[in-house]
């Protein structure tokens, strides 16, 4: 089945279903979506964004091109009022009474139940989720929903705090129920850029409308959530913890443990449902693809389409040469990324401290600082504490054209990455990189397969959270201009050969326009 079906005239060709990203949040995924929208002007796009609640919606960072014909915002929660005037309780009470006599069986509720208790029959689950027979009111105040809570509690968390289970059950499924009640955007195909709530919504819409679904994952959503859940402090604030009178030991309370398992399983099943419905599952690197397969993706439907860079936006190395550091000036090191803990800027600052004690250094940190102000304060404090105010400067966000001409070495100390665009950008600008060994970084720097490796290393890969290794790598590059030049050139050659934006766009264009979608795609039994 080709995407363009002459018998159907949907509002859009491709409807992106996005969660917490474009156009409201800047970052790798948002940039990727933006470039795709601009790069494929002959395709009509729809953009559906899922956000937490209406009040949290900020001004869009990106302006959509004219080929975006549908823009829609969906929200997981209602806006919370500032004060309690009793109307909420009044409404809740009225709804409880209204629904008290209802005994209708809801397929969506049945799916929620099976999601936790069985969860193997993905197609059947999706059909039930697509049934659209559960209102938010019935979920919150209906007796059938309550009985599902009791049943799940008995199976998943017996002996735990019931009230905690109840609230977590609501918090987990209310966004789901709210999103499932949204009317599907008419589209030739749905393209989710993660699993989770967005992936499930795309899968359900695909099931309901019969349009196929495509899934691209930059990071592996379910695993990211699992890691987050492992560290989530809010999970520890269960009632049984509260009356122990302790601040918390290394072990979870039974309730926290059960809830953590429940949340983890929830996201894992959502991922499996999205994988099951998606006709094509795209990842950026082979490592990510292997994880998708391990999480339930059908290997036959997976493919790798790496990120790409528009080389025209980056000057050729010969043009850059005069701007590069002189042999006697300080070496200019750049860090490009959001200032958040996952990017481990602290390790970069510590590495700068070690380097600056050996050679003159001029370090710049580029990236938005508004996401985690406490972390930014911590970074600034560390810079001050180490006496690096004259060495390390925070420059905020800047366009690539202003960043790379002033950088001799790009450093990326992230604790987690998919396929970082900044490494590709540095490669395009012929700048050697020092990167931590996460995600597809090693593949980008040293090459994936044999012909790729033959292009030579584009930088040095270090271990995570190891400032002394990062500093040693910077020093090695700083003291050897020839090595810098060679690595920069390798990077540019690699990007030119394998990571061109035109290649990425062509791959998606082919996928959208000419891929033969499996016959099973988008078949709904509802």
């Amino acid at each position, binding site marked *: 089945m080709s995407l363009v079906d002459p018998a159907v005239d949907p509002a859009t060709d491709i409807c992106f279903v996005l*969660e*917490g*990203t474009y156009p*409201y*949040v800047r970052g790798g995924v948002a940039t990727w979506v933006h470039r795709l929208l601009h790069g494929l002007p002959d395709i009509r796009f729809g953009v559906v964004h*899922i*956000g*937490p*609640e209406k009040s*949290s919606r900020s001004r869009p960072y990106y302006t959509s091109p004219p080929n975006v014909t549908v823009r829609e915002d969906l*929200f*997981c*929660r*209602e*806006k*919370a*009022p*500032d*004060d*309690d005037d*009793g109307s*909420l*309780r*009044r409404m*809740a*009470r009225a709804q*409880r009474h209204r*629904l008290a006599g209802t005994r209708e069986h809801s397929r969506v509720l049945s799916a929620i139940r099976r999601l936790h208790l069985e969860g193997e029959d993905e197609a059947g689950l999706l059909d039930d989720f697509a049934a659209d027979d559960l209102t938010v009111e019935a979920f*919150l*105040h*209906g*007796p059938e929903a*309550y009985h599902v809570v*009791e049943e799940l509690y*008995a199976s998943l968390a*017996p*002996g735990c*705090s*019931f*009230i*905690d289970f109840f*609230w977590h059950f*609501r*918090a987990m499924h*209310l*966004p789901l129920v709210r999103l499932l009640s949204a009317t599907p955007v008419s589209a030739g195909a749905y393209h989710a850029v*993660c699993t*989770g*709530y967005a992936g499930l919504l795309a899968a359900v819409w695909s099931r309901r409308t019969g349009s196929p679904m495509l899934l691209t994952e930059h990071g592996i959503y379910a695993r*990211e959530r699992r890691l987050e859940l492992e560290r*989530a402090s*809010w999970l520890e604030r*269960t*009632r*049984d913890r*509260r*009356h122990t009178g302790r601040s918390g030991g290394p072990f979870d309370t039974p*309730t926290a443990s059960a809830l953590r398992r429940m*949340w983890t399983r929830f996201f894992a099943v959502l991922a499996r449902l999205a994988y099951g419905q998606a006709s094509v599952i795209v990842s950026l690197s082979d490592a990510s693809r292997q994880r998708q397969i391990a999480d339930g993706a059908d290997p036959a439907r997976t493919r790798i389409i790496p990120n790409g860079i528009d080389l025209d936006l980056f000057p050729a190395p010969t043009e850059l040469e005069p701007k590069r550091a002189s042999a006697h000036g300080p070496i200019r090191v750049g860090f490009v990324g959001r200032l958040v803990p996952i990017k481990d800027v602290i390790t970069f600052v510590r590495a700068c401290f070690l380097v600056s004690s050996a050679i003159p250094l001029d370090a710049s940190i580029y990236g938005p600082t508004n*996401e985690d102000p406490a972390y930014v304060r911590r970074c600034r404090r560390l810079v001050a504490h180490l006496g690096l105010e004259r060495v390390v400067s925070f420059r905020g966000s800047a366009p690539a054209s202003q960043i790379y001409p002033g950088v001799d070495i790009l450093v990326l100390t992230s604790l987690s990455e998919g396929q970082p665009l900044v490494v590709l950008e540095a490669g395009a600008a012929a700048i050697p990189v020092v990167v931590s060994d996460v995600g597809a970084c090693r593949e980008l720097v040293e090459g994936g397969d044999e012909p790729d490796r033959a292009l030579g290393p584009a930088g040095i890969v270090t271990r995570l959270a190891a400032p002394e290794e990062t500093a040693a790598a910077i020093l090695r590059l700083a003291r050897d201009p020839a090595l810098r030049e060679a690595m920069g050139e390798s990077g540019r050659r690699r990007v030119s050969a394998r990571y061109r934006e035109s290649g990425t766009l062509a791959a998606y264009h082919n996928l959208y326009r000419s891929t033969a979608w499996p016959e099973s795609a988008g078949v709904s039994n509802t």
Partner: protein
Amino acid sequence: MAGIGWRLEHLIHRGVAGAAAAYATGAAVMALPWVLTTAVLVTLPLLVGRDLPGLAAALGGVNVAYAIALLVAGPVQVVVSRFAADRLYEGRRGAIPGPLFRGLALALLACAAVTAATLAALRAPVTIVLGASVLAAAVGAQWTALSAGNGLCTPGSVLVAVGSGALTSFACAAALVKVGGLGLPGFFLGLVAGQVLTLALALRGILRALPDEADEGARLAPAFGDYRALAGAGLAFNASLWVDKLLVWRLFDPLSASHYASASTLAWFSTIPCLSWIFVEVETRFHRRFHGFFRALEDGATLTDLRRRAHGLGNEAARLLRGATSAQAGVLVLLELAAGPVARRLQLPAEAVLAYRILLVAATAQAVGLLGLILLYYFDLRREAFTATSGLLAAVATLTTGAILAGLPPGAGTAAGCTLGALLIWRLVFACIPRVLEHTLLEQPGVWPRRRRAMTAGANYASRGSTRSGSIPYSRIALSTESAGTLPSSASACSVATTMFSASISK
């Protein structure tokens, strides 16, 4: 009634004397206000002299004033007392004074205006219109203050306020009429002086329990919407207590109505031991279990534990029913046996004795029904309370009318109506209490105000970019015990009106 349960238990554990003191406290709290008021209103005409010109009309005006205060201020009382109890539970005492004073002002104005309009329509003399309107204003505001005060002051201070007021009314009215020679204006001024004293003492007690600084932005109007079912239930229960007297007054001659009202008043006195028992048991053992259930829920009990506790609450309700029925049945048997001698001593006519015997049964059903209603209030089952009391009112009105039309004693219809109503109330109690957990949780809103967001961990996985530790609070639980105090005070007010009927009509 902060701490009253603990004090009662402390007394009971002291032995027989302590238990007697506890039950005496219960009797005083539940019955003393209306017993004292009844005593004042019955004995005052004897003291000031029946020959005082216009006294009969003045007592009629007093009747109207009390009846209107009962009806008009009743819903305001329920709303204000529940509002105060809920804010108390939330720990927002500063939000109480503003709405409380607005509620008092509403009760005061409405009672005065409606009484004045009614008496003017009945072509009463100006002195009686003015006197009764002022009395209604004072009584309406006083009952509203006392209903809120039940939750904020100690029972002792409420009783002192009521006792002082009753004595002052009695003494002032007698002095102003007999010594001052002020006639009817003095009679009204004396009555009002006592009510004003009670109101002032109640206000003093309430305000001493509240902070000096009050949030004037707190609104009462939404509470009328929020608690409308409770207000309706209170009104319907009050109306069910005297609708039969109204029907008898309307369909019989005044003398029969007077006898019926007197018999009803005497019969209602039979509930004092039962009400005392209800007060002590509800405030001690039941209250402990009730709070234990919700405390366990908030403290993270397991579902099995919560089910066991809910089952225990059902058992406790059954025990209360058995106990109240037994206590009332015992009194009923004694009074039925003593009815003849008592009637002879009070020189009551035969028809009043028959009505008294039948109305003793009705009073039993009313007391048992009242207990069920208190439990429905406890569990915040507003709609059920409204349904039950509406059913009670309809049953009493219909069956009393039916009995009168069928030539049966009206009390028989009333007793049958009260019994049916009590059965309906208890059916709802036993249907709802085992499902208290389900009802409580299903009545939690899906979203909570930001101000309240801090109690229970929830989760927010709405957006990859914003995985915050959102928190969804577990709400306040069902109502606190204090607001249940509203009903007995309404019932006592009703009894006062009943007494007034008997006192004025018979003379």
